[in-house]
């Protein structure tokens, strides 16, 4: 393995351990201690928080911003896919054939989605007013990571155009991955851990009070 691959693995280790620390802290703090008499079971509310409540049909913010919502879905799919592919790429086991083509199409879409989200943040005054350097940096890093995953995939494919840059792409890919992995616990990207906890809490709250999944007569 090259030095930059080792560097990426060390960064990944740091990222995983830190995120695990965040996660364990949440577990240690535990679920809400609520002494009020529940109106309903929390389970269906929590399930709904992770499913139906996230659909544009029930989420006004998604419905009113369908292009952004769709871009966000692709962007996150691309992120998960890129992380998944990292393990294949570092072990040299590249996907091939139609699977590789499908992955590259998806990564193209997700990278474009990342760029579109960045552009929106730059040009929309309301969004700009909410943003801090972390918002831009996080977006740029994740988008670059996806784009580099795409280029590394391309360089391993029959497209000769990219063959010549294979070594450079590899180094850049691992360098960006390293920066990203080191940055995840420091900025807003740590929502990767807290997102699940947030939806759990919202589902717990509304489930317990009988608001989600759907309002029903209490007796």
């Amino acid at each position: 393995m090259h030095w930059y691959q080792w560097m990426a693995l060390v960064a990944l280790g740091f990222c995983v351990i830190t995120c695990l620390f965040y996660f364990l802290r949440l577990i240690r703090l535990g679920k809400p201690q609520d002494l009020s008499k529940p109106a309903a079971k929390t389970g269906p509310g929590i399930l709904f928080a992770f499913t139906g409540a996230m659909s544009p049909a029930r989420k006004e913010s998604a419905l009113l911003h369908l292009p952004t919502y769709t871009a966000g879905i692709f962007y996150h799919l691309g992120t998960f896919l890129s992380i998944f592919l990292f393990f294949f790429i570092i072990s040299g086991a590249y996907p091939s054939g139609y699977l590789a083509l499908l992955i590259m199409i998806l990564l193209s879409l997700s990278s474009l989605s990342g760029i579109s989200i960045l552009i929106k943040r730059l040009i929309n005054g309301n969004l700009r007013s909410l943003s801090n350097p972390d918002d831009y940096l996080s977006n740029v890093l994740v988008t670059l990571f996806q784009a580099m995953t795409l280029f590394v995939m391309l360089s391993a494919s029959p497209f000769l155009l990219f063959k010549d840059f294979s070594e450079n792409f590899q180094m850049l890919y691992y360098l960006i991955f390293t920066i990203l992995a080191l940055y995840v616990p420091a900025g807003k990207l740590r929502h990767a851990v807290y997102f699940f906890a947030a939806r759990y809490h919202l589902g717990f709250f509304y489930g317990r009070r009988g608001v989600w999944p759907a309002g029903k007569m209490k007796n």
Partner: protein
Amino acid sequence: MKDFSKDKKKKGLEVFQGNDDSRLITQVNSCVHCGLCAETCIYFQALHEARFIPARKVDLVSAIYRRYYTLTGKSVPWLTGARDLDENTVNEMIDLMYGACTMCGRCNMHCSIGIDIAHVVQTGRKMLANMGYVPASLQSTVDSAIRTGNNMAIPKDELIETIKWLEEDLRMEVNDDSATIPLDEPGKKILYTLNPREPKFFPLSISAMAKIFYAAGESWTISTRMYDVTNYGYFSGNEEEATIIAQRLFDEMKELGAERLVLAECGHGSRAFRWEAPNYLGTEFPFEVITSVELLAEYIREGRIKTDPEKIKGKVTLHDPCNLVRGGGIIEEQRYILQHTVNDFVEMNPHGIDNLCCGGGGGQLAMGEYNERRMKITGMKAEQIKKTEAKIVCTPCHNCVDQLTQTNASYKLGVKIMTLAEIVADSLE
């Protein structure tokens, strides 16, 4: 602003230290500033200023957390927008937490991540309350409740006089000299609470409920010592004061030995006692707590009262109080009641758990300094009402009644605002 000091800052930051569970720490670490919550907020919709976006309110609290409790915030605060808790931050917090949020929770349901934004705002209010920055007008409402037992400082004699007058009225109306509005009677099934606005401004809503209790043959009483369903300590963010108020109602329930506590038509009061008070007091309640909305639905369902929808003339629409629907899961009961009491019912759009706040929640009605803003944001509700072409707006919350009454006058809607009990009482056979 009163002098800001290190001691106050320390007290403000204490809210992040007592993490009883993972809820708060989750919420202050979750916002990604996507801004999609903007249109869910009536303040942003009505006033079109970026500072009113719910994410901005979340960020004010989260930025302080980041500054003092994260490595990045401590070492490179500019990178993540971490903020010092100083006079500027406090001033902005007062304006946004108290003056630009009704804690209606509409943004919660539509947040991309799932942050309980109203809870974060409540945390911001707690910080301000810890530092002694509750707006004086809101604090005076809390003070009245603590000093006199009710937020309008109604003397006991005045309450008794009003109730006795209403009792005579009831006797004439039901043509029964034995009809009563029982006061301080122990061992009854129900202890019924009041919103102090009722004896002060809307006594007919007490009459309405008394008439319904009479028709249902209910065993009930009102306490003259502690009848106030409201708890403005919940809105001010001062949990100690909220606890004092809740404790009094809890004690009165035990004193009178009633089986069920029925919370009058008051959104935040219902939420504060039904859902928050057990946690303030650190105990599960040994008695049943229900809202009057649930009770009315129960009476109709069990046939204890008979209603005639023909008696209510004109199209009726319903305004859902945020704390009852989103904060308390009372969503279908009011609709069930209206199905049985009016013929011509039309829903607002949106309604139920997606309803728009009337603008009077979160203690806004008690804070005169934000009146102008409050009356601007209620324009959206006025538009909703206009579109229904209803003649009667029913709402099971006296706070909403107050706000909608002002909305009605300001926007010249020409509608009648009624509580659910009034609708039911008027439709009794």
